[in-house]
């Protein structure tokens, strides 16, 4: 049973044999007394990040709800014993204690439980709970009683599944956008250590060598520190269709801007598509802008470029001369020229972050074009991480949460 459980999880989560053995050890030592504890303890042992909790919840609920569990006879008694372990009354609500004391003759209950198990063995109606499907027993679904729990038996199981089904950790999933701190953590992936600064670190080995050569007179040798040498340029699409995402873009900007992580950090704004000017602020007045060619001259390919935008615009904005959304704006070259220029100039050092969820069914035509030129990632924690990994090592696919969730019905 636990082997199956392990492999079921292994398909979805990065769990290892070491962790499985730890879980078995915990069971063996009798540290897990009921299903609710099993839920928490197995989570503690198998999941090592709150980002995985949501996936664990779904997997846990699915496994114990849907998998047609058939226990061999010899372990049936054990399972019963295990589930039968009373939950410490102190952990339960007051009215529940009263509730429990009113009912139940354990022996009779065990008999019923056995019958039910047998029944389940006989008819394999897959999708049901392995106990108490049709409300015909005390194990059944009686709705609103405290935490849907009746006693030892199936109840602990149900309670655990219910906890899992609440999916309270949904928000902690990595593919959901969160606060600046997490964005910073994600951005920190992009680093390249190089020696910079003053010679202020004492090199012990060299000091000893030099001192020895010096006949015992101490000669101190100082060296330069190693620091991150990444220079970053952030280009942000503002206004229009990006307005709903302004909060997100702000978060990204303030995260990147507040980090002492970069050797250099610069930012510019544009609207819908990059044309011959890049603006210094979100108001985009022409007086405060940098000419596109100047921009390329100023920043060579040692800079990493992150472009943020939904890449959704009218086709002519991208492909036509004079296609800019602004009537008086006469762009001599189509937007796509500039996109290509950026890609050519910065080579593998440019990524595009898109705040709009990239759906397969409906992709704006311009987004298809742009993402074929510049690699595009979601503006989520996970997307930023992937993008930073891409910038660090020129693109290598990693295991994403989106992939992990494939094949689940929920």
């Amino acid at each position: 049973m636990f082997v199956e459980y392990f492999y079921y999880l292994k398909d979805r989560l990065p769990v290892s044999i070491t962790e499985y053995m730890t879980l078995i050890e915990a069971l063996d030592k009798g540290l897990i007394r009921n299903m609710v504890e099993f839920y928490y303890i197995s989570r503690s042992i198998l999941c090592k990040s709150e980002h995985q909790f949501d996936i664990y919840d779904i997997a846990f609920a699915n496994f114990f709800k849907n998998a047609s569990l058939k226990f061999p006879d010899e372990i049936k008694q054990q399972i019963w014993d295990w589930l039968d372990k009373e939950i410490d009354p102190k952990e339960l609500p007051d009215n529940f204690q009263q509730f429990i004391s009113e009912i139940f003759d354990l022996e009779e209950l065990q008999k019923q439980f056995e019958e039910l198990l047998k029944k389940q063995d006989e008819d394999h109606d897959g999708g049901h709970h392995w106990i108490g499907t049709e409300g015909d027993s005390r194990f059944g679904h009686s709705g609103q009683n405290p935490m849907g729990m009746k006693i030892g038996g199936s109840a602990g199981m149900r309670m655990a599944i219910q906890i899992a089904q609440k999916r309270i950790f949904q928000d902690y999933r990595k593919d959901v956008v969160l606060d600046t701190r997490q964005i910073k953590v994600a951005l920190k992936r992009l680093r390249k250590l190089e020696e910079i600064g003053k010679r202020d670190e004492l090199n012990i080995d060299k000091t000893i060598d030099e001192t020895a050569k010096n006949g015992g007179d101490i000669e101190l040798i100082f060296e330069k520190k190693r620091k991150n040498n990444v220079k970053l340029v952030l280009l942000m699409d503002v206004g229009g269709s990006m307005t709903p995402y302004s909060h997100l873009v702000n978060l990204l900007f303030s995260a990147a801007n507040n980090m002492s992580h970069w050797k250099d950090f610069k930012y510019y704004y544009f609207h819908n598509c990059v044309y011959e000017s890049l603006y210094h602020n979100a108001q985009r007045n022409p007086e405060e802008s940098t000419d596109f060619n100047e921009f390329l001259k100023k920043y060579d390919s040692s800079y990493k470029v992150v472009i943020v935008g939904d890449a959704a615009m009218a086709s002519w904005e991208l492909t036509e001369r004079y296609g800019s959304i602004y009537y008086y704006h006469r762009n001599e070259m189509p937007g796509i020229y500039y996109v290509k220029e950026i890609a050519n100039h910065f080579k593998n050092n440019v990524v595009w972050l898109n705040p709009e969820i990239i759906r397969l069914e409906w992709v704006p035509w311009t987004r298809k074009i742009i993402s074929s030129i510049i690699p595009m990632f979601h503006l989520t924690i996970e997307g930023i991480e992937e993008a930073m990994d891409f910038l660090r090592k020129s693109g290598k696919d990693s295991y994403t949460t989106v992939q992990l969730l494939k094949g689940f019905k929920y």
Partner: protein
Amino acid sequence: MSISNFDQFKGSINTERVRYIADPQLRNIVNVSIALQRPLLVKGEPGTGKTLLAHAIAESLGKKLIIWNIKSTTEAIDGCYMYDTVQRLNDSRFGCEDRDVNNIKDYITLGPLGEAFASDEQVVLLIDEIDKADIEFPNDLLQELDVMEFYIKETKEFVKSKHRPIVIITSNNEKELPDAFLRRCVFHWIEFPSKEFMAEICNLHYPDLRQNLLDQCLKHFYALRAITKLRKMPSTSELLDWIGVLLKSGISLEELRKTLPFLGTLLKKEKDVEIALEKIKFPT
């Protein structure tokens, strides 16, 4: 199946030094990690009592607590021992009466990890904010935490733990921890306390606090936490500070209903204060 015999963490501590209350899940996980002899990795929002947990465990089990505060420059070897080359070099040149330059042991001091291993009785070892250090740091500790011993290469000696310490590790998620390290730990995410549990916590810290005042404080507090735009959510420790300040100021319930005094105790960012004052509606 029986509960093996080991010192159990009771979850609720109320002594002069430590006041702490853990929810049943956390209490169980602590006991599981003690029984399995695995380090317990604790994460959670800032201010949910991650560090305090180690203090509470030590207090509850009556064991000594050894703290290893991790900084961005900390290296694994610092926790084991320090070999003061510069001092020795200096002594060899200028001489010293207390130390023997020829005896390398005189220049070796044990770090927190070394102390925990060398202790004659089981101790609680807190490795605080492990994510502050370099990304490779946890990997350098694997062997030490696995077999609980390390090697001093200068003296060619092993320091082996007499009693495996109870290891509590906290992390603020600033850096991701390596998988190999995580596999060896038991992990717990401290959830933010529910309103009821929070009331219990407050009562533990301020036993004389009047119920209606507490209710009002909690009402304000959870209203603040409901504002999603805040950059830094107020946490348990900030709530406790705030209640402390309110009690000292002797504010009346009426006043507290209408205003949010000493907001600076709860919110640490100017922008957040603005947003909060805008969002929270007071009865007029």
